[in-house]
């Protein structure tokens, strides 16, 4: 392999080994801390302190419009969230969204990458088509898609009318369709990320393997099945897990396209958090919902670590 191996930075496998750690050199502590200090200050101010603040306020009736933490609430905010139908509804929407986006995002990205890798020419064009949306602002994407979905006059409804449905249900205005509409937008928007990850993974598969397989008379499909898919297994794990974590944090598209509606039929957890804290002024309850979401994300991240460690062991 020609490229130096870059560990996925989000996978903290590059922990210093015990040998390195014991290697404390005299006179390096002071400069080391000075080098770390500027970043460290920001890290403490905008990562550590917010986490602490969030934990504390989740146990208080903290109000946006009053000073201080307010009166002590015990586990009241957590109890409220865990018994609030809207919380579970939002959690379910978040999970449902995760499921209906992850599968097409992984499968389509995989297919596109295999095909693009196969044809090899006009790569710039496919990158333009599939990847560019990914780097555009969610707000711009939402404007484009809301327009496409606009009831009766939009591109999508016009198409459905032309195909013989005289009064199609407005996508973003129908409770059962709103989240699916957002999901389609999300697939369009973010597939480029998985696409380039798969392309990178594909380019690391040695050509010799395919050539050897061809010599053995394996068909194209057999080659994909027995070489490409297994060797992209790690990339797939990575893509799936990154996708799940990204979907759990979904906020932008829902806020922009449906604001959680109609009613609450597309509300997601982060939307509930900001609604509770900023619209209802209930920072304490919003913090509790945030903490619960963070716990779910940490669990998924933990599972990811376990899977990657198992894969590393198998690979070793």
């Amino acid at each position, binding site marked *: 392999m020609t490229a130096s191996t870059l560990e996925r930075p989000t996978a903290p496998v590059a922990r210093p080994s015990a040998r390195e750690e014991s290697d404390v050199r005299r006179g390096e502590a002071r400069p080391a801390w000075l080098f770390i200090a500027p970043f460290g200050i920001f890290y403490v101010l905008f990562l550590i302190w917010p986490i602490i603040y969030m934990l504390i306020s989740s146990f208080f*009736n903290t*109000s*946006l*419009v*009053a*000073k201080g933490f*307010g*009166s002590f*609430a015990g586990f009241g905010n957590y109890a*409220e969230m865990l*018994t*609030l*139908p*809207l919380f579970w509804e939002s959690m379910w929407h978040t999970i449902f969204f995760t499921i209906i986006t992850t599968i097409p995002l992984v499968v389509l990205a995989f297919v596109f990458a295999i095909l693009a890798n196969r044809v090899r020419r006009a790569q710039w064009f496919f990158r333009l088509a599939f990847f560019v949306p990914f780097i555009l602002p969610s707000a711009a994407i939402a404007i484009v898609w809301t327009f496409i979905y606009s*009831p009766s006059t939009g591109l999508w409804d016009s198409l459905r009318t032309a195909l013989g449905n005289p*009064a199609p249900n*407005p996508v973003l*205005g*129908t*409770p059962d369709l709103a989240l699916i509409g957002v999901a389609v937008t999300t697939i369009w928007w973010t597939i480029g990320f998985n696409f380039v990850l798969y392309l990178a993974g594909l380019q690391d598969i040695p050509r010799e393997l395919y050539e050897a397989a061809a010599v053995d008379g394996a068909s194209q499909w057999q080659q994909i099945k027995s070489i490409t898919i297994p060797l992209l297994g790690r990339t797939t794990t990575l893509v799936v897990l990154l996708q799940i974590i990204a979907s759990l944090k979904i906020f932008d598209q829902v806020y922009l396209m449906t*604001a959680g*509606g*109609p*009613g*609450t*039929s597309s509300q997601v957890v982060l939307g509930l958090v900001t*609604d509770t804290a*900023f*619209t*209802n*002024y*209930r*920072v304490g*309850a919003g913090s509790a919902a945030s903490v619960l979401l963070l716990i779910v994300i940490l669990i998924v991240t933990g599972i990811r670590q376990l899977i990657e460690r198992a894969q590393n062991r198998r690979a070793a």
Partner: protein
Amino acid sequence: MTAVPQRPSGNPSGRFSRRSLLRGGLGAAGALGIAGGLSGCGSAISAGLVGSQLDPGTVTYWNLFGGGDGSRMQTMEATYEKQKGPNSLQAATFAWGNPYYTKVSLATLGDAPPDVAVSHLTRQSNLAIAGLLEPITEDMLAMVGLSSSSFSPKVWEALAVNGQRYAIPIDTHPFVLYYNKDVCEKADLLDGDGNLKEIRGTDQWEAALEAAKKVTGSWGASVATVGDTATSWRWFQSLYSQQTGSTPWLGDGGRKLTYNEDLTIKTLDYIQSLTKKKLMPAITDYTGSQTLMFTGKSAFYLQGEWEITTAESIDGLKFGMVPVPTLFDQPACQGDSHTFVLPRMNRSEDQLKRALGFVKSLLDQSLTWAQGGHIPAYVPTLDSQQYKDLKPQSNYADAVNSVVYDAQAWYSGSGSNFENTVGAQFGLVQQGQATPAAALSTARDQLLVYADTKSPL
């Protein structure tokens, strides 16, 4: 906390002085070589980097009006700008409902509110209790030649928050009944002048719907049942409030649920019976319910009066508007008012005068505003002949006196959690997917969570 907090004067105590902190930060900015061009590079940069004031001589104004209201408001803004010269006004329109109120709240907390903002009457009370608004005094009104008697007494009364006023009303916008004149004519529901004959009581109402249905072949009346919780609530609240013995839904600032259970069930039963008898559609959304009336598939359509703009834009549609018919004991309809509020900030006498002058200018244009269906709250316009000549708008001007505002609670008001929660359940009743008792019990459980929660205000 029920008392209205005193407006902090000067720098809110216990906070860093924003200016001094930012001036300190300016040193850091200078180190990055970006402070050099600050002075000449426009007000936004210096406001963004060192918190200086943006456009001191301009009135900033935020509203939430889209559609027809939006374009009428822009006309009114343009009139003001024409009077006061270019750059006298900066208006911004935000998405309706919660996003808008969130923006107003956060901006006020962050010391950057607009000079004037629009608020629903049912939302200004919460903003006021949260300490985000300036009280409006008679002295202030007098600065621009207004007084409390310039406004409809009913609206001015409803504005009170702990004996104080924090808002200047411009209108009342009730839930009303639209009717398709062609259909009603064929169903013999019009009088000699081509106006709807008065409908009183459930018998007459159902008879009218039956007659209309024969003409339309589809429905008698339509009201949104799907995907629009506010409408479901408005329809219910209008009928519920028409009955003797109906009590406000919430009491004690939202800590208690005070609705009349029997009347609620009775009202929901009645609403459901109309869809069960196929006099009204069980499944239709906001625009769908309009289209049914516009296209003659139903004779009547219930919605806020603001949809007049949409109805007027339909080619060949002849329609009229009247207050929601009195089906029970007394006239009543759900409604709200648009008001102007002055978010809390340090204002000079000049700024205050400019802000109030702008409000006065908009009030003076109440007739333009009334064309969008809203009933003026400004008495000189309300009593003017021009308004009385404005049809069908002035036909339901009396509804002002029978409007029922949503009860005050930190989770209540137009577009609030309360409307969403209750309206979602009542929508299920309309659709026939829940019994009135089941829907009420679910709504009650969900509301109790809010009622039992300590108010953040």
